[in-house]
């Protein structure tokens, strides 16, 4: 069964204090690789069979109305087999 994945991220210009907190916690645990961290959301949406173009169009619509807030966030839609 295929999954439709929607990933939502804050726009680059929007302050992400959660990501910053994660970035500053990493070195305290000895992880020194991160220059910066931004935190987002991932939605996994199951559909019957392969997603149809009509379903994907609906997912796009849902992504810009409910799953993300276009004022502060961007989203991408992917299909995962």
């Amino acid at each position: 069964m295929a999954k439709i994945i929607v990933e939502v991220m804050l726009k680059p210009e929007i302050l992400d204090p959660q990501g910053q907190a994660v970035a500053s916690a990493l070195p305290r645990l000895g992880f020194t690789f991160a220059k910066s961290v931004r935190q987002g959301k991932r939605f996994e949406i199951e559909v019957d069979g392969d997603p149809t173009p009509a379903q994907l169009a609906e997912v796009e619509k849902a992504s810009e109305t409910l799953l993300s807030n276009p004022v502060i966030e961007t989203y991408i839609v992917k299909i995962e087999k």
Partner: protein
Amino acid sequence: MSFRIGVVTFPGSLDDRDAARAIELAGGIAVPLFHASDDLKEVQAVVLPGGFSYGDYLRCGAIARFAPIMNSIVTAANHGFPVLGICNGFQVLCESHLLPGALTRNSNLHFLCRDQKLKIENTNTMWTTGFKQGQEILIPLKNGEGSFQCDDETLNMLENEGRVIARYVDFDPNGSRNLIAGISNERGNVVGLMPHPEHAIESLTGPSTDGLTFFTSVLHQLVGR
């Protein structure tokens, strides 16, 4: 005669009773409205109270926006019906696109609860006519996601059109752009405010009675209509 002001209860609203009490103390009739109904019960204005509607799931106010009562409120607000959104109510107004911008996590990540000084910057909205321009007031602020964010273009528009109604003074609680605590729509009938005027209406329980003026302002405006 007195005016009927509705207070919407969403699942997770907390301050609906305090808002109703503030309306009554200001001289209005508080009318409880329910999220699942689209019936505005002939109210002449609406308050969207603070709290955690739908558990703040997804984003604050994101799910409340799709409640049946919000369809009626959005339609009415676009025709000049007065709406005040406090805290979570402000978040709902932004998610409903009645107000521009969005409220995001406080810059220091902490939930903050304090008596906050504000400066009133616009006394022409339906909810702020009782204040003096530049008046400083002290009302409680309590939220985790109160940082007002928008793009530069929107910020310039808000500033140039005088739509910032209140700004934080002496202390930056959350990293809001230009210390914005509250804004209005173009027409001045829709106002969103992060701090809580409904908790500052009586000296026994609040740090001041400054909050009451938001509610008396709208009642005076309704008389004048």
